[in-house]
């Protein structure tokens, strides 16, 4: 293989890696927009106007939770997953996509160090997650 061919193949590899990473970013941005950012934008307006975003998931309108038992467990499970299922699906998709489609050495450069900077980058990225 000549030097120029080697350079060609190196470039092709890098563009695939870039494409994989881009796919992850697009999935994250589009997914978070649908599941989090857009609904929360609307919810913020509701909160500003009505000073409420629904009743307590623990106890409804009152302060006494339902008696301990299967009925309470079932009702909570439904209410909870009804509220979070889209976020759970997105999180699972993002979790597997980051493992397969994002080059490890790129991720390591950003989040691999055991220092405050790496943690600050991760903390800043987490702001967009709103999970």
């Amino acid at each position: 293989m000549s030097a120029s061919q080697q350079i060609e193949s190196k470039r092709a590899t890098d563009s695939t890696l870039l494409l994989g990473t881009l796919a992850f970013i697009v999935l994250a941005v589009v997914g978070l927009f649908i599941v989090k950012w857009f609904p929360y934008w609307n919810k913020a307006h509701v909160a500003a106007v009505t000073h409420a975003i629904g009743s307590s998931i623990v106890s409804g309108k009152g302060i006494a939770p339902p008696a301990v038992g299967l009925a309470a467990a079932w009702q909570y499970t439904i209410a909870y997953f009804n509220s979070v299922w889209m976020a759970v699906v997105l999180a699972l998709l993002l979790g597997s996509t980051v493992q397969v489609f994002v080059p490890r050495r790129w991720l390591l450069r950003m989040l691999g160090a055991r220092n405050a900077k790496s943690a600050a980058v991760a903390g800043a990225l987490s702001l967009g997650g709103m999970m």
Partner: protein
Amino acid sequence: MVIGLRRQHASIGSSLAFFLGNPVLNPATLIFMGFILGWQFSAIRLVAGVLLIAAVVAIANRMTPDDVPDHAPAPELAPIEREGRSVGTLFVAWLHELWNEMVAVLPGYAVIVFILGGLRAWLFPPDFTIHAAGLGGMALVSLVGTLFVIPTAGEVPIVQTLLGHGMNVGAAVALIVTLPTISLPSLFIVRKAFPAKVLAMTFGVIFAGGLIAGTIAQLVLR
């Protein structure tokens, strides 16, 4: 997502920052909270959240000095970096990881939510939550807040309802700091991504953070 980051060898500190930052620093929740409970609550939550993450990350990095030596051999490549990859192999690898995550996460997650949901009356007895005050009361509220699981921003209406019935401002702050941050299910989900002692430490720090923030709020607010 945190599991994926850890499998990709993101450091323990950054993964923890991501794990905790997502719920506790959630800008949307801080905004809802400002409009509904008052901006002083959002401010306390923001400051407490940043301090808690910094504390957990600093302790975790100190606790695991040999986890990733500086000159560790290069980590295994991600599927997209491997030779001979194709659209087919990547898709299979992706489905494989997705399936593994679903099996490892979903059943246990649902069961723990089910159990905690069923025990609500014991975890949040109105007579106790409304009157919780002092170090002991605040500690119990923080413990419940650290264990219990709620959807994103669920703490806002929970605390709104309790405050409306006369809950102590300190106990309210303890709940605001601990309820969203971690829970039994969230610890279960990341159980293999972090050493057990790191998760135990995280639990302790969040619990203590609720206790301290609640106590300070009790003294400062009114």
